[in-house]
């Protein structure tokens, strides 16, 4: 429970700071939050015992702690990047306390969701993870797009969690228990239980933005503030993938042939549709939304076949994906905070005026595309290896073709920044320290994670027991 307790203490401290500082000296809030959260991330890595609590409702293992630490790192980067946005938009600066409080609440929800041992804890965690973010998606009160994003997110989330709940109740009806451990020993061969699986899969796939549950993604990412889009696309997605892995391997382990097939076809459509739509986008946030849909399509390649190596490959890929995606969103955020420009055309000639920003963007995009020597190459390579060793060569072939297609649209952005010339490029942006720190952490992560083999070994050793 260490993660959750620390986060709750941090949330309370933020509230206290919010209440005790007057209207004019809110500037203490941002450094305080960054320091608190860095401490939490650091403490998260210290070793601790694992086991079950609350009669089996809450369990931790090395793998779950690893997942929570990855989410912590991601949220730390999001908080650092948000500092830049908060400083530039004055109406939101006064709400910094509320902003950070909601993000931490959502993270607490995700932690409970990942550690859940029964469906009740899972559902509570899921709702706590989703609903506050809808509030943040609508936080820019003066922009209509933001409110639209908030409404779309909350309505689609409500529908999908309704379907999820229906599935859970069917499972409870057929089995009599909500606990994962007793459900996993149940041999699920009735069609009612199959229906329950489909509903639960649909509910979780909504958060992962797998096709055909992805329709909310582009509009919400485009309308929400950039840092909330980055939170949704990396942290929220990663947590949903983690819990999907846990559910598939514990509750639905008797249905392995069913979910292998479901994952196979879902992967194929998700990759394809994500790539095809990403090619046409002009708005950078929509572009990154579809690109993240396509990236999520690669994840099932690691889960299919159900091997320990596959799970390690997925966790490794997600860690790298968090760094790469936050790097790309970080650059978009840095530019849009100061100039408000979000279109690909406006990025023309960016290298002449802002070389470091262009380089970080190029590194992040190459990592997303899977180009060596940056970390994304290693992540994708291991995912493909996991699927190939299980014999799914056709799926790997489709995946590599899609990876090449995705390279095309990532190169479009590189082309705009480096090759296209413009008479009015974006002026030199002097970023504040928080933005620089955030982008630096992402860039370092992208460069180092691939070459440091010990990180993968560490993940592999932690994922025993599945």
């Amino acid at each position, binding site marked *: 429970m260490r993660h959750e307790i620390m986060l709750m203490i941090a949330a309370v401290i933020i509230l206290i700071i919010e209440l005790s500082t007057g209207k004019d000296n809110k500037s203490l809030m941002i450094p305080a939050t960054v320091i608190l959260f860095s401490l939490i991330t650091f403490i998260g890595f210290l070793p601790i015992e694992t086991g079950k609590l609350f009669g089996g409702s809450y369990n931790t293992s090395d793998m779950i702690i690893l997942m929570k630490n990855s989410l912590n790192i991601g949220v730390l980067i999001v908080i650092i990047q948000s500092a830049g946005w908060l400083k530039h938009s004055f109406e939101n600066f006064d709400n910094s306390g509320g902003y950070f409080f909601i993000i931490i609440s959502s993270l607490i929800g995700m932690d409970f969701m990942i550690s859940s041992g029964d469906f009740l804890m899972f559902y509570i965690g899921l709702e706590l993870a989703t609903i506050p973010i809808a509030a943040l998606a609508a936080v820019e009160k003066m922009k209509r797009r933001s409110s639209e994003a908030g409404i779309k997110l909350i309505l689609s989330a409500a529908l999908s969690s309704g379907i999820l709940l229906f599935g859970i109740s069917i499972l409870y009806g057929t089995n009599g228990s909500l606990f994962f451990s007793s459900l996993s020993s149940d041999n699920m061969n009735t069609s009612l239980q199959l229906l329950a699986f489909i509903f639960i899969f649909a509910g979780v796939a909504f958060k992962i933005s797998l096709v055909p549950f992805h329709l909310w993604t582009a509009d919400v990412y485009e309308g929400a503030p950039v840092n909330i889009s980055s939170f949704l696309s990396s942290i929220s997605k990663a947590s949903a993938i983690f819990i999907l892995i846990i559910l598939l391997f514990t509750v639905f382990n008797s249905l392995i042939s069913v979910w292998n097939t479901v994952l196979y076809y879902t992967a194929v459509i998700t990759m394809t549709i994500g790539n095809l739509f990403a090619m046409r986008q002009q708005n950078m946030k929509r572009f990154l939304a579809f690109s993240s849909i396509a990236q999520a399509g690669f994840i099932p390649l690691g889960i299919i076949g159900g091997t320990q*190596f596959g799970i*390690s490959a997925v966790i490794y890929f997600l860690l790298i994906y968090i760094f790469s995606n936050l790097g790309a969103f970080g650059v978009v955020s840095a530019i849009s905070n100061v100039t408000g420009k979000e279109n690909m055309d406006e990025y023309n000639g960016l290298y002449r005026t802002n070389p470091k920003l262009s380089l970080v963007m190029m590194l992040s995009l*190459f990592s997303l595309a899977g*180009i*060596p*020597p940056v970390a994304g*190459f290693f992540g994708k*390579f*291991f995912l*493909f*290896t996991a699927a*190939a*060793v299980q*014999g799914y*060569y056709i799926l*790997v*072939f489709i995946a*590599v*073709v899609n*990876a*090449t297609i995705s*390279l*095309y649209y990532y*190169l479009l952005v*590189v*082309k705009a920044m*480096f*090759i296209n010339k413009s008479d009015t490029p974006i002026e030199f942006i002097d970023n504040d320290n928080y933005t620089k720190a955030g982008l630096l952490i992402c860039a370092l992560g992208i460069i180092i994670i691939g070459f440091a*083999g010990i990180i*993968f*070994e560490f993940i*592999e050793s932690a994922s025993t027991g599945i």
Partner: protein
Amino acid sequence: MDLILLILVPVLTVAALMTAGSKAQARMIAAAGTGIQLILSVYLLIMYLIERSSGNIDQMLFTDKYVWFNTLNIYFSTGVDGISVSLILLTAIVTFTGVLASWDVDYLYKEFFISLLILSTGVFGFFISLDLFSMFLFYELAVIPMYLLIGIWGSGKKEYAAMKLTLMLMGASAVLLVGLLGIYSYSSPTGSTALTFNIIEIAKIDIPIEAQRYFFPMVFIGFGVLGALFPFHTWSPDGHSSAPTAVSMLHAGVLMKMGGYGCLRVAMYLLPEAANEMAWIFIILTSISIVYGAFGAIVQTDLKYINAYSSVSHCGLVLFAILMTNDIAMNGAVLQMISHGLMTALFFALIGMIYSRTHTRDIREMTGLMKVMPFLSVCYMIAGFASLGLPGLSGFVAEMTIFVGAFQNTDLFHRSVTILAASSIVITAVYILRVVAKILLGPPGSNLPAGMKDAVWNEKAVTIILIIAIAGMGLLPLWLSEMILNSLGPITEKLALLK
């Protein structure tokens, strides 16, 4: 000799370049870095020959292994044999002369040299790698700087050419990845379940023939696209013509040889049964490359396009010879890789020099350059003669070995395609002599800019180094050919066991 130095030197040069200030500093650093790399490669060659003559008969020398990802059995394994050593020397020569030929690059000069050196790092890493993972990593690493190099510093329809080249080559490496992962999944020796990526270990295992039939086309096409295999060669003419001089030199001279080397080292060596069965399909495709490339060069009017199609034809000859699966032909293939690499680097360098003076690459607009720029014109003639296989220059050595080797296969199919491929010598002569006569001989054209100077010092250095290499290989090829033949032993053994 620690092979990792060959990667360390370019990386350190890149790091040094990032701190460079002025254009003079940047190009001195780049020239120094690539010069040191050249000295290292010559040293490697001498050390290799000494080791071999002192009786060391290991397949690979100077081997080393660095653990990378223990759970997947991925090591960064390095090692060289005769083939790799000669190709490393080729790369070092072409990179050094490429830097010298780019002495006047002005726009974003620092980034230009950095990208060029990252490209060469990828190539050196590819040639010293002994395991599939690192080979693949360096193979992809060598493709992506091309996009920036052609897109930013190129000419003509550079954005189109850059995107087409990058997507086609990355698409090929995508197909290659599936093939490599397939080989990996079958790589456990009998009695154990440990998979490996190491080429030498995999060569000791028999991969089942049904699996080989799927993976051989993927691996061969994956590497072959870079080696200009018909019909996937279409990235080459536009790519080479839109690229700046040094990039064309490196790409046509060295990168396309990575394709041939990959076919030899991975496709033919690790999947020999499928190679024997399916060679005929690819022989037909490569013969088409050879003849079609040569015919294509005849009708072009842009100097760079002529040379690009000529490269398609000559690189097709490399793959053709590899597919002949006997040791003389494969020896000829490696010799052709080296010879063509030097030749095409010389050609592209000269075309760049001519272009910077006449500001046109259209052969219809140039005549009589011999009177105006005698040094460069004579160099161009030498390059042309090497290309059409004049004895005394490297082209003859390579092509003769290939055709003698190819003719050793006595059946009708092989003999007839050999005759077809040999006819390309005549077609090559047509387009080379046509261009030489048109642009070099005759009275100086009236539309040429006035006051054109002959070669300056860096251009003379480039041409002299390359011509010495070409002539040296043409007059004294025996040491090279024997070094390569000894290293081909294991490969041809595996292929011959099945005949």
